[in-house]
């Protein structure tokens, strides 16, 4: 791969990774915990948009064979107007701008739902950009869309999960976050595995293709990494989450109950009146002073 092709692949990777991070963070807020994620949402949105724009420029140069800036700029209009890549990427970039506008003030919970839905659409549009679209196989396109959506919910949720677990909340809150994320993860993993199997059957050309082609070798690496991630997820589900639950039970019942309310945008807490020594920590509340501070 030459330098230009490497730059092109890198930009596409940056754009895709940032978009998956953006969609994953929003789905985390929606499905796992209404955690304030401006530190993830803002850079992800900016990187996804800028990465997409530069990808458009470089891809236009690659498609037209342009090697000067004027020729490249002239080709961009043709690519946007006359190619599926340009049509779909522009639609995605518009969606990402809207998502960024909605998610920039991440404290507004009512905006999380439309932002998450639009980000999901932006992710699914990849199925109309890549090989699945070129294959003309609608099942393959749908499969890739679900595959990427599940990947965004799971992989894109890892950074928010890490940030949430670093927050100095009590163990009950951490356990709730871990439990909710595990449920999302389980659904996502099954979706990823099922759609990967379908795509593999359609693209590898059987077992011989899996072990005898460069595409198959890359897929094998991806499968190995996927299995390693499954081990980590299993450790989270079967070891860490139960351990946190046990710690909560052992904490003399004075825990501040944290529970995510998807559209409320607040960390809800309560403190049993019989536990005056309990010192729950609430991080924020938009509707006034925290009830358990």
């Amino acid at each position, binding site marked *: 791969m030459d330098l230009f092709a490497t730059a092109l692949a890198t930009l596409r990777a940056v754009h895709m*990774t940032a978009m998956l991070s953006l969609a994953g963070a929003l789905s985390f807020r929606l499905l796992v915990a209404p955690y304030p994620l401006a530190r993830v949402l803002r850079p992800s949105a900016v990187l996804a948009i800028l990465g997409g724009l530069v990808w458009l420029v470089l891809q236009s140069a690659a498609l037209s064979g342009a090697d000067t800036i004027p020729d490249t700029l002239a080709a961009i209009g043709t690519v946007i107007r*006359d190619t599926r890549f340009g049509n779909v990427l522009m639609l995605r970039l518009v969606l990402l701008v809207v998502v960024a506008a909605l998610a920039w003030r991440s404290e507004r919970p009512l905006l999380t739902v439309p932002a998450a839905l639009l980000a999901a659409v932006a992710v699914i549009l990849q199925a109309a950009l890549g090989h699945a679209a070129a294959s*003309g196989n609608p099942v393959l396109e749908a499969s890739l869309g679900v595959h990427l959506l599940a990947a965004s919910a799971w992989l894109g949720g890892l950074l928010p999960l890490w940030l949430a677990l670093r927050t100095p909340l009590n163990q009950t809150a951490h356990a709730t976050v871990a439990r909710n994320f595990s449920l999302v993860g389980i659904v996502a993993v099954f979706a990823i595995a099922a759609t990967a199997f379908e795509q593999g059957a359609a693209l590898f050309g059987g077992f011989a293709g899996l072990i005898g082609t460069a595409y198959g070798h890359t897929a094998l690496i991806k499968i190995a990494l996927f299995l390693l991630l499954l081990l980590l997820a299993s450790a989270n589900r079967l070891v860490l989450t139960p351990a946190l639950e046990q710690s909560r039970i052992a904490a003399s019942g004075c825990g501040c109950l944290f529970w995510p309310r998807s559209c409320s945008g607040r960390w809800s807490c309560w403190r049993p009146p019989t536990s005056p020594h309990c010192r729950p920590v609430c991080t924020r509340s938009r509707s006034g002073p925290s009830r358990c501070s």
Partner: protein
Amino acid sequence: MSRLSVRLGLVAGVLAASLSPAVISRAFAHAHLQSADPAAGSTVTAAPADLTCNFTEALEPKFSQLEVRDASGKRVNAGDMHLAPGNGRQMLIGLPKLVAGVYTVIWHATSVDTHKTEGRFTFTVAP
């Protein structure tokens, strides 16, 4: 426990980055010539009115090309390539009344996933 979670998160994050579909799904799939009429390497007794090339993937017409050259290297096709109506995988190009001889077909295909391929083949007209 929290530290362990954080460490697992870090490892998972690195793996997640390496698992990114954008990183993994490099351009392994391309539009390849599946069939042509006149077929590659064939000899036809009647001069064809047009040339048809079928590819394995849908094509971008603005960035795909098809041309026919005679034995001297002169371009002989009439007009430019266009895609068959309703079939994004089929390139068509009109031909004049070809005289006897060997003709070379040169194609450049860009599939809708932006991958580019190219190739050439010959056919012979021998009335």
